[in-house]
């Protein structure tokens, strides 16, 4: 067994165990920290596949942005040291059953299907290649989705401000 294989299985175990802990612990702050570990594990899997750019984006956006946002919202909305209420046993059992059945179905389909790989020469996912393709206007370029996403981010920014604004114009 090579070092790469060992690293892969360690990353996989780390990711999945922290994901299970994130959805099952009753301390909400611990759930956020386990979510952080899960996202780092997924970034490690991207590094393992040698997609460096997307791993960096994952760490910057998810680990540095969304998790911090979630932790702030926990600080603003939860009382310190308060546990999440215990769920009904029946609901937990049926949820676990539904998730497991879905997982088994998907995995059966995946393992019965044989994927065939292309033989074309691979493009290295370097930052230069990604940038050329991202702003390309030729066939296979992603300039239009790029602009649409920037409009979407602007709309989300304005929407957040509008939602979070205090609406009390009556008091003088």
């Amino acid at each position, binding site marked *: 067994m090579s070092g*790469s294989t060992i690293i892969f299985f360690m990353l996989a175990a780390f990711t999945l165990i922290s994901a299970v802990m994130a959805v099952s612990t009753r301390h909400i702050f611990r759930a956020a920290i386990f979510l952080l570990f899960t996202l780092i594990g997924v970034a490690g899997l991207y590094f393992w596949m040698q997609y460096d750019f997307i791993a960096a984006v994952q760490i910057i956006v998810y680990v540095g942005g969304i998790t911090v946002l979630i932790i702030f919202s926990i600080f603003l909305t939860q009382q310190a040291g308060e546990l999440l209420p215990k769920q009904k046993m029946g609901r937990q059992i049926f949820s*676990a059953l539904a998730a497991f059945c879905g997982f088994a179905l998907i995995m059966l389909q995946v393992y019965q299907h044989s994927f065939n790989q292309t033989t074309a020469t691979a493009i290295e996912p370097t930052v230069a290649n990604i940038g050329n393709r991202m702003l390309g206007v030729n066939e296979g370029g992603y300039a239009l989705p790029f602009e649409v996403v920037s409009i979407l981010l602007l709309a989300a920014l304005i929407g957040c401000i509008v939602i979070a604004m205090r609406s009390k114009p009556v008091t003088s």
Partner: protein
Amino acid sequence: MMEPGLYHLLFISGALFFIGVFGFFTRRNLVTMLMSIELILNSVNLNFIAFNKYLWPDKMDGLFFAIFIIAIAAAEAAVAIAIIINLYRSHGSIDVESAEELKN
């Protein structure tokens, strides 16, 4: 032990997806439900990158889908947290059972 490949990554992303689905079913707190949604989106990204690496390494479409999904997930999380904090201000709780004005 086999060399890890596409099937291993598909197993991980499938497991991550259904862990997220389980969390979404069992949790009743809006912040933890949002965390489950982030898990689901991450599993989808992992799937796209794995297919791009192992089946179509001559194209980069999976990578771009993953980048755009990350951007949209960031926007979605920001709007969702604004809504959650607003709900906490008006109801004093972020449990989904406490927001039921539209039920009747």
